[in-house]
């Protein structure tokens, strides 16, 4: 994308209008990543803004040999991981509020205009149960289709680490689905009981 290269090089020289173009082009993917990582629309909006501020102050470190999209998403991933680490350091009571936030009916979430409401809620719940380091690889893999090599570079780790995180994440998700299925079944059989009596 020639236009994008031009924006980047102009922005590197301090051109704010060019940087605005980059924000316009990448706010959606960055926001989606932040929302999937943090699970909260307000925090995602804040994280998106901070990601672009960080990117602007580090533009001189950007290597044009790489895709700008993976560079900006790498900054966003690190920012969200930092936020989750900080969140973990807060009080337990706050953690309780956080898990309450994952409940579907609190307030409209960005995906709720879509039809498959329940599936989207399930996606959100499953992601929320994964440790941040696993969550980030799942997001980069499923929403952005990055290869192990690209993810390793973005997260500054090895490909084998990515491979094992992705494997553990999938194992964990499989278990979570199994548990939710089992509780579903037991609930259904419980609900069915009075009717059959």
């Amino acid at each position, binding site marked *: 994308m020639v236009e994008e290269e031009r924006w980047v090089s102009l922005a590197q020289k301090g051109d704010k209008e060019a940087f605005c173009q980059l*924000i316009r082009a990448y706010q*959606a993917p960055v926001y989606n990543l932040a929302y999937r990582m943090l699970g909260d629309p307000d925090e995602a*909006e804040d994280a998106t803004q901070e990601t672009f501020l960080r990117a602007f102050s580090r533009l001189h470190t950007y290597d044009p040999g790489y895709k700008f999209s993976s560079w900006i998403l790498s900054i966003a991933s690190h920012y969200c991981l930092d936020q989750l680490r900080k969140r973990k350091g807060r009080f337990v009571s706050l953690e309780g509020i956080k898990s309450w936030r994952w409940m579907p009916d609190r307030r409209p979430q960005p995906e709720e205009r879509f039809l*498959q409401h329940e599936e989207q809620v399930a*996606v959100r719940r499953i992601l929320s149960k994964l440790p941040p380091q696993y969550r980030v690889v799942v997001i980069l893999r499923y*929403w952005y289709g990055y290869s192990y090599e690209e993810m390793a570079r973005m997260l500054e780790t090895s490909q084998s680490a990515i491979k094992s995180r992705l494997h553990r994440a999938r*194992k964990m998700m*499989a278990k979570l689905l199994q548990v939710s299925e089992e509780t579903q079944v037991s609930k259904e059989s419980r609900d069915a009981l009075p009717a059959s009596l």
Partner: protein
Amino acid sequence: MRCQQASEWMSLQLDGLLTQAQWEELEEHLQSCPHCAKEWGMMLAADQLLQGAERVSPPRDLVPLVMARMEARARRQRLLFWGLGFALGALLFVWGVVFWDGAWRVWSVLSAWDAFRVLDCLFRTGVLVVQVFVLWLRVLFESGGGLVLISWSCLAAFLMILWLYIVLFRGYRGRRV
């Protein structure tokens, strides 16, 4: 094939990284091991769920918001820059006055060796001040470093004043008596 390896291969298969032969080997294990077959089923279900997940977009255009933050931060940094520059200037001024006053006093009373040591210490302090200044400039250009910067500057200033007080006005006055 052991279950652990089978499980790892399932993940690779979902990323399309297994060879045909490996996949056949895995399938064979899945047919003989109900535990792994169950896990594979659930992994596939999770995979499908995630494949169908939507991409969400920000509820509003974030460009003006980012630019506003950038402007506010630049303003704050300028303020911090001038404030700390002024404070450092004042500190250097005080240090200069004390230096000449102290050096003169020490020079007039003590042996050349003691005077040399005091001058040496003062020189080191100067180096420290320059180092702090450089650190301070560097942090200024990294975002979010404001608080760290102020704490370090205060600590350095405090230590320097304490050091000057002890060395020049306590130590040598004591020896003079």
